[in-house]
């Protein structure tokens, strides 16, 4: 790795940023794919394809 200087404060900032991003992705994943907690506007009810 080349010798780029990065100060401590920036390192902590980047770490917090990465952590928050990962939490946000996990929350989105949980909210959409697991809980399926979102509104669906059903504008094709007559042609609905259900998984059954």
């Amino acid at each position, binding site marked *: *790795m*080349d010798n*780029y*200087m*990065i*100060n401590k*404060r*920036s390192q902590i*900032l*980047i770490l*917090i*940023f990465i952590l*928050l*991003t990962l939490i*946000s*992705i996990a*929350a*989105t*994943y*949980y*909210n*959409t*794919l697991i809980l*399926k907690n*979102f*509104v*669906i*506007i*059903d*504008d*094709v009810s007559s*042609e*609905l*394809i*259900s*998984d*059954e």
Partner: protein
Amino acid sequence: MQNLYCPWEPATYLFFSSNVPPLIHYSHFVVIFSALAVGLIIFASNPRALLSRLFIFFSVLFCLWALLDILLWATNDPALVMFSWAMQVLIEPLTFAMAFYIFYIFLYKEIPSFKVNLLFFAALLPLILLLPTELNLEALLLSACESIEGPIAKYYSYTLNLAFTFAIVLVGFLRIPRLENKDKKRTALYFGVGLVTFLLSFTSGNIISSFTDDWTISQYGLFGMPVFAALIVYSIVQFKAFNVQATGAQVLVVTLWTLVGSLLFVVDTPKAKIVAAITLLLTATLGYFLVKSVKREIKQRKEIEMLAGNLERANTRLKALDKQKSEFVSIASHQLRSPLTTIRGYASLLLEGSYGRISEKAKEPIRRIASSSKLMTFAIEDYLNVSRIESGNMKYTLTDFNLKDEVDHACDDLRQDAIKRGLALIFRSNLSSRGIIHADLGKTVQILQNLIHNSIKYTEKGSVKVYVRDDMVRKKIYVDIIDTGIGMSQETMHTIFQKFERAENANTVNVHGTGLGLFVALKMAQAMGGDISAHSDGDGKGSRFTIEFPLAL
């Protein structure tokens, strides 16, 4: 609610379904390949460099976005659409931020300051915190399987994209004009223009799609990536940007693979797929050999360049050594000449009886001292001349004079020597002109005497003929010195004018000689616009030396 699906068949292998137009696959895979190719080329060249790592991360982020986009076209699962859409909203500004960091580090060779980092952090924070909320994506429209975007996705994300692009333009304007290296400046310019073109086309495609709800438009925005890739690759080939050693051939082959490979995803019929696959196979094989042969040639060229460099250095060193040697010879010769003059002077005075009568018995050794020191003086004069010629210190005083007369006088001077050896020295001339040349008189006489004397020395019986002739067409005058002496072989003729070279059979008739006389004569003649050539039919068949000078008309 959870059981609702969009009105088409589920996707196969995540990316393929009847809902995806063939052009979507083509446009996305071409840009994914080109982004990955450039990212990998830069990363592979120096995996430990920060810039290489950021670049591959940037390429991967963009590819992820493009893959999510195909997935969004293909899937009929609303939950997957909501998740992928949200991820796209996150990835897009991250790609832009990453582009800024890469460009900044490329230009400044340092990581942005804490303040800049904090600014980016603060700008991205609302997006990250509100990503899972309805402020990002409000709902899903089932008929089109599209998310209805909230203010974060619709306004904030695009504002960030434009702001980051502006930041890139700003650092480019501030830094590029200050770069000193011309190649570095051009590389930075191509890089910056490519990056901004890509980012603007990417985001504008998405903005238009977002506000018109026509998501087919966004795919055209992706074509900024091949433009960016092309500019990066051009910088790499032309200016060795990112310290990557790539050739045009490698780039051409990878581009061909990308284009032919992406055809596989577009063509519909099985026959066309087979043709595309065979073409890809052939392109891959031929490309492999092409790259291999180009690499070999480059390696050879580099080796030759290295050898040439070594040779040049050795040559320079040799020239320096040769100069030192000439200086040494010059100093040594000067030191020898003064005592020799004294020896010759006193020997001459002794013989003349200036110091009283000398017995007949003592006269012979004194004569030998005189003649040997005379020979030594000639030898030293030769060394001095060589030294002067090689150091460029030989001075020529050019005047107009009659060459025929000088040849005649030289023959007269040397006739006694010829008679002593039982030879006839014949002078003839056949001139249409007056025989005037523009040269150094002293040096010309020296050349003439040297050559005529040589012929007398190396001829045991017969004659030495000296002819002066001219050629009015070529405007030249020639002096031929033809003898019936020992002659020389073809090999000797090629080397006779080189330093310290004497005819192979020279020692059979004449033990004296430094092998410098002809070298000095030739160099002097050439310096005065003339030349000397030698010819012989072989050993024992005599020689002909021809001196030529331009006529002064």
